């Protein structure tokens, strides 16, 4: 049984002092129900998660207590992707026909401060100042730039594009364009990455209504089909965040593994994809993830990005809603925001940030600590 997305809802990302994270999730859920033309009482099951805003199951208090099986999902930055994968399996198995996937969050300002014990690490690792995701991203792109000739200018261009796209997206947090020069000259955070090259923990909520494909048209004139949903964790030898040591022999990371499996499941290849949302925790991540997901060779990004290929009107548009850089990263909602954006794009409803040329296949990719990646391929 194939799986379709027949309703989407979003609470604008950024800062909303008047609403809790949970309320932003409820807002998104009501929007998604409205989009699918159904009532909350029609929903047979739900998967959802947040990292900092409580159990998603508490949404029952906002939406109504209907007795449905509601499963809380917690899987770091891949929480949204994991919820969607679980819902995909629930429908594919024939167990359910119609369900809700929801993610929301509301984080305090500033970088995440992770607890070493949560990851099985000694306290010393945090005490001496190694427990920071930003350092990992900086060290990974530092090595990548050294090996593949990526320049600082390219890092700046990625952020410039994100803010350009964010300015076109009414639900984005950062809606002011920032020039590549301003990006490059902003405060250095972790060399070679400056302040404007990093996304910030933020707020937001996203919800999706999923159903079995043969019933999709009952709810939606323009259903989008989930051709694959894959989650992978790291194998021994991949270079990952929060690693006091790593192997001398490197292997492909979870992004490469998830991407390959997703393409195989969908029966399509990277060249078939019309629009992609790739994890851009910082500028370097978008660059590396272009190659890790199979969309170009390592090093080719330098020329591709300079030529404008990844812009909305380019040959391979990436992060058309402004990505994490312009939307911030509310952990529970972030991966689902990518899916929301691709559904908009495939329906032709993305407004000012709509990709031209009638896109048919969309790709989403999240990556997060301590080395997990989720990929979806969506088809109109």
């Amino acid at each position, binding site marked *: 049984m194939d799986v379709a997305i027949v309703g989407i809802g979003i609470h604008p990302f950024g800062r909303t002092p008047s609403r809790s994270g949970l309320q932003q999730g409820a807002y998104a859920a009501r929007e998604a129900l409205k989009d699918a033309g159904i009532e909350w009482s029609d929903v047979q099951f739900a998967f959802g998660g947040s990292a900092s805003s409580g159990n998603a199951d508490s949404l029952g208090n906002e939406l109504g207590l209907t007795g449905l099986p509601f499963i809380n999902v917690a899987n770091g930055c891949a929480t949204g992707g994991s919820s969607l994968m679980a819902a995909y399996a629930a429908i594919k198995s024939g167990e359910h026909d119609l369900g809700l996937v929801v993610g929301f969050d509301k984080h305090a300002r*500033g*970088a995440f*401060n992770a*607890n*070493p014990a949560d990851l099985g690490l*000694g*306290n*010393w690792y*945090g*005490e*001496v*100042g*190694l*427990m*920071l995701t930003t*350092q990992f991203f*900086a*060290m*990974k792109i*530092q*090595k990548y730039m*050294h090996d593949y000739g990526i320049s600082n200018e390219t890092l700046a261009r990625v952020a410039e594009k994100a803010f350009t796209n964010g300015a076109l997206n009414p639900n984005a947090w950062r809606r002011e364009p920032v020039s590549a020069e301003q990006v490059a000259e902003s*405060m*250095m*955070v*972790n*060399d*070679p*990455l400056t302040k404007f090259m990093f996304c910030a923990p933020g707020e937001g909520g996203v919800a999706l209504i999923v159903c079995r494909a043969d019933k999709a048209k009952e709810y939606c004139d323009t259903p989008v089909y989930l051709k694959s949903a894959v989650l992978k964790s790291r194998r*021994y*030898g991949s270079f990952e965040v929060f*690693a*006091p*040591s*790593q*192997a*001398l022999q490197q292997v492909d990371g979870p992004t490469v593994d998830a991407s390959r499996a997703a393409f195989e499941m969908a029966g399509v290849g990277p060249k078939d994809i019309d629009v992609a949302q790739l994890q851009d925790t910082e500028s370097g991540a978008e660059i590396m993830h272009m190659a890790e997901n199979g969309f170009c060779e390592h090093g080719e990004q330098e020329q591709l990005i300079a030529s404008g290929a990844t812009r909305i009107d380019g040959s391979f548009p990436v992060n058309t809603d402004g990505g994490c850089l312009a939307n911030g990263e509310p952990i529970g909602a972030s991966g689902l925001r990518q899916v929301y954006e691709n559904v908009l794009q495939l329906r032709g409803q993305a407004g000012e940030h709509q990709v031209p040329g009638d896109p048919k296949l969309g790709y989403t990719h999240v990556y997060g600590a301590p080395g997990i990646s989720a990929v979806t391929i969506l088809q109109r």
Partner: protein
Amino acid sequence: MSQQVPIAEGLFTWPSTEPALLGSRCQHCGIATFPAAQSCMACSSQDVTVEELPSRGTLWTWTVQQFMPKSPYHSNETPETFKPYGVGYLELPGGVRVEGRLTESDPDKITIGMEMDVVFDTWRTEDNGDEVISFFFKPVDANETGA
């Protein structure tokens, strides 16, 4: 009376005239990891032995931490006295790549591939006067010129 204490037990040999980082090596597949673990994360074997890791290696990648981390960061610094610090992975021949703080923090003086030594020094001083010892990676040239 104040004394020198390691930041964590089992991370490196201490006390010692020539302290070394302690890793574990899998007796089944041969890979090493740091800090020493009770099983092998490559093959899941529990047949592992603790060994001293080499004291000199080459820098695999690096960054400079420009802002003061939030808790669990624990130093004697205040936001006013905080100084940026280098962080990197040192590739130890025959062993592993170990992550650690660098003694150098000037990005213009740090390059991938440079040789560095593992050194041990006071990280912070506790209220009771105890010196907490940790490990750092120090450029080899700086050692030899005594800088």
